[in-house]
């Protein structure tokens, strides 16, 4: 951790308030960032971090409050003003155009122009080469951005910000999409930038990373600042408590697994992606009763296709899936479900819920034909459905004004709890959980993790797919690493993160098949 090279204040935000109908996203927020420090801004989803940063970047206009840059009051009417003041933002969802080259993306908005108004590629290339050399960020200006791995795309974003002459860099959840190795590289880059005199605001909810990289921390909760912490004097538990407003259990509490018989067997499974290219190239594994098998991998290596095939929403092109001794390879979503396979899909809003349906209706989705909820598959038993919904809402602590509220109006965590409740309440033999806690706040994560472990303890075979290595490592009893459509290795639960990271990027093991 570097100590600030100077005590001067690079940025001050005073009394920032922004309200939307029904919510106060920022309530008199104060933020003070010293020049040359890495300042972490932490908080749960919806705490108001992004709103605050979007205000700073001119994308949102605050209702009240003032901003001082290097001690001078600043008027920020739009991104253009922010850029002019030396503020640069690396967004969580990259602001890159996949079909443009890296050079075009970096230059966009400040393009060098040659004679006759033509875009000057040569000059663009030269300027990028100079920037990348100066900050040690190797990057090919002529590569098509969409073809680059995520880590390099992020690098392009950083170069883009630097090209605009930013002194204050805002990084919004920069590690969310990165592998552990890429995260390490990013941290090296960030430290290098600080050495060059840049100031960095680092937004994250990954507390370990915050502790590793930041100098000071501002914690937000429900639109307010609830704590200013100095990194070297604090710890993970203290930050988490400030974020959530109560003590939270950061470690998953679980007994050793007691695996039973093999219930679910995947043999040499192959499938294609939406674009028709092979995504699964012969995946095999066994899943036992009462165990959690984690699938670790960088996103886009076939894990999405794998769960979809297993859930019956994508066709396998080869191989077999056995549930007990039944071949369920060609089952569709309905028959898979009837056979006892429950599915928590990764796309909660698109696949998991009908957002305009009520909580109650969402809680019986996929089971609407069952005799408990319908009379001869023709007429819904509304009373039974309401009773069922009330029970689940209570049991799974779904925070909703009523069971008639549309799922759309619930927070991400509560939406996810609807799905978790529905799937677990079907008493499945196999539970497929894809990114079960993505975009969900710490409180809900804690709850969902406990339920998944409880499910395991009752004898369900759980397949857990997650991009969060921490989640995989804390929940799984065994970890299968997927890379380019192959399971490259199946590792024990206590495998060090470094080894998993290496396997995830194609190193460290010869192919299992």
């Amino acid at each position, binding site marked *: 951790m570097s100590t600030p090279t100077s005590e001067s204040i690079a940025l001050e935000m005073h009394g920032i308030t922004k309200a939307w109908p029904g919510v106060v*996203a920022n309530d008199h927020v104060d933020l003070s960032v010293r020049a040359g420090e890495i300042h972490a801004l932490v908080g749960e989803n919806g705490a108001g971090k*992004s*709103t605050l940063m*979007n205000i700073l*970047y001119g*994308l*949102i206009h605050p209702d009240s409050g003032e901003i001082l840059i290097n001690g001078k009051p600043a008027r920020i009417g*739009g*991104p*253009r003003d922010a*850029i002019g003041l030396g503020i640069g*933002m690396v*967004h969580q969802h*990259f*602001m*890159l*155009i*996949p*079909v*443009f080259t890296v050079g*075009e*993306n970096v*230059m*966009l*908005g*400040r*393009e060098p*122009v040659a004679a006759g*108004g*033509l*875009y000057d590629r040569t000059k663009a290339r030269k300027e990028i080469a100079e920037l990348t050399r100066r900050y040690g960020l190797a990057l090919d200006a002529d590569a098509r951005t969409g073809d680059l791995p995520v880590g390099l795309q992020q690098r392009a974003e950083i170069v*883009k910000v630097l090209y605009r002459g930013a002194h204050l860099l805002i990084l919004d959840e920069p590690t969310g999409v990165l592998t552990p190795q890429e995260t390490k590289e990013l941290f090296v880059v960030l430290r290098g930038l600080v050495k060059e005199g840049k100031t960095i605001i680092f937004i994250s909810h990954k507390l370990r990373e915050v502790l590793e990289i930041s100098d000071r921390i501002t914690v937000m909760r429900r639109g307010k600042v609830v704590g200013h912490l100095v990194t070297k004097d604090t710890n993970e538990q203290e930050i988490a408590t400030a974020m959530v407003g109560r003590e939270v259990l950061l470690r998953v509490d679980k007994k050793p697994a007691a695996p039973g018989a093999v219930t679910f067997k995947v043999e040499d499974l192959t499938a294609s992606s939406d674009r028709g290219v092979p995504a699964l190239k012969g995946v095999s594994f066994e899943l036992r009763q009462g165990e959690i098998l984690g699938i670790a991998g960088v996103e886009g290596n076939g894990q999405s296709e794998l769960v979809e095939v297993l859930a019956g929403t994508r066709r396998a092109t080869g191989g077999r899936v056995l549930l007990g001794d039944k071949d369920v390879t060609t089952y569709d979503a309905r028959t898979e479900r009837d056979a006892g396979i429950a599915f928590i899909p990764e796309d909660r809003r698109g696949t998991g819920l009908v957002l305009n349906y009520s909580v109650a209706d969402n809680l019986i989705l996929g089971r609407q034909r069952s005799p408990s909820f319908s009379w001869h598959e023709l007429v819904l038993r509304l009373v039974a459905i309401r009773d069922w919904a009330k029970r689940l809402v209570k049991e799974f602590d779904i925070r909703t004004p009523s069971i008639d509220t549309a799922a759309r109006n619930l927070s991400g965590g509560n939406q996810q709890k609807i799905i978790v409740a529905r799937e677990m309440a079907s008493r499945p033999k196999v539970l497929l959980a894809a990114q079960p806690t993505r975009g969900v706040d710490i409180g809900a994560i804690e709850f969902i993790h406990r339920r998944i472990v409880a499910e395991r303890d009752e004898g369900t075979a759980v397949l857990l797919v997650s991009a969060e290595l921490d989640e995989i490592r804390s929940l799984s009893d065994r970890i299968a690493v997927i890379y380019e459509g192959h399971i490259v290795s199946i590792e024990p639960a206590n495998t060090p993160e470094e080894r998993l990271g290496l396997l995830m990027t194609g190193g460290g093991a010869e192919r299992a098949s």
Partner: protein
Amino acid sequence: MSFLSDIGHLLLTADLWRATLEAAVLLLLPALGGVISERSGVVNIAMEGMMLTGAFFTVVADLAWHNPWLAALVGIIAGGLMALIHAVVSIRFRADQIVSGIAINIFAAGLTLFLVNRIYGLQDVGHVGQSALLPYINIPLLDQIPFLGRVVFQQNVVVYAALILLVVVQVVLFQTRLGLRIRAVGEHPQAADTAGINVYAIRYGAVITSGLLSGLAGAFLAIGISNTFVPNMTDGRGYIALAAMIFGKWRPLGAFVACLIFGLGQAIYDNNSIIHVSQYLLSMLPYILTLIVLAGLVGRSIPPAADGVPYSPGTE
């Protein structure tokens, strides 16, 4: 096989190719407009209505002032104003752009019909005098080139303008800063916005430009190719231009190739007296080709990523 030999003869005549180019240009102008609009992320199916409006007001102005240049300018502006409606509705009010486009096409058909009756009564609009038409100009020397001279260099002034516009649009879209920004806005408006580009300004500009080009096509149709206004005289050309835009994969040169193919169909259709095939069959040709392209049989045609998606900044 008299049909094939007829076609063969026809294909060897310079006049057929001259007619092809002329018909192609009539499609090219709105197609270029469509390319610009959709590259900026605003779906535009209203070229038909903009063309029709342009054609009508061109004739009105020409009958009043007997000046084809002024008349064409009025037509261009009329097309631009129709486009402005589409721009306001789909950019400012973020309405469904297909619905807005359909509405404009229906509105244009109704408006022109109403005004025709209102201004000229139920009789004919009247003919624009020979001297008040957009002129055909032979380019000195070049028009003497055998075959090619007749095809390319003995054309209406609008044809030359369109060919120049084609090159300009192609270069601007893919070689200049403005083009980079237009495409950025059409692919990922948020990225463009955060790069300090005014998304709304670019989109308004692009949509209005599409109207200006469509208006010019209307003027060409009314006082270049013909000399009067007839209700619904665009006869679906705005839609064929739309097809050409898709066929050409949202690229000006690609659209031009498509326009030539459709234009050839039109030219053969117009010369139907020599060949013996149903004109109805021929007139279906552009649509069939478009369906084939849309079905992805001739290489997938992928629109700009944010095409048709209204932009609202800064919401979480």
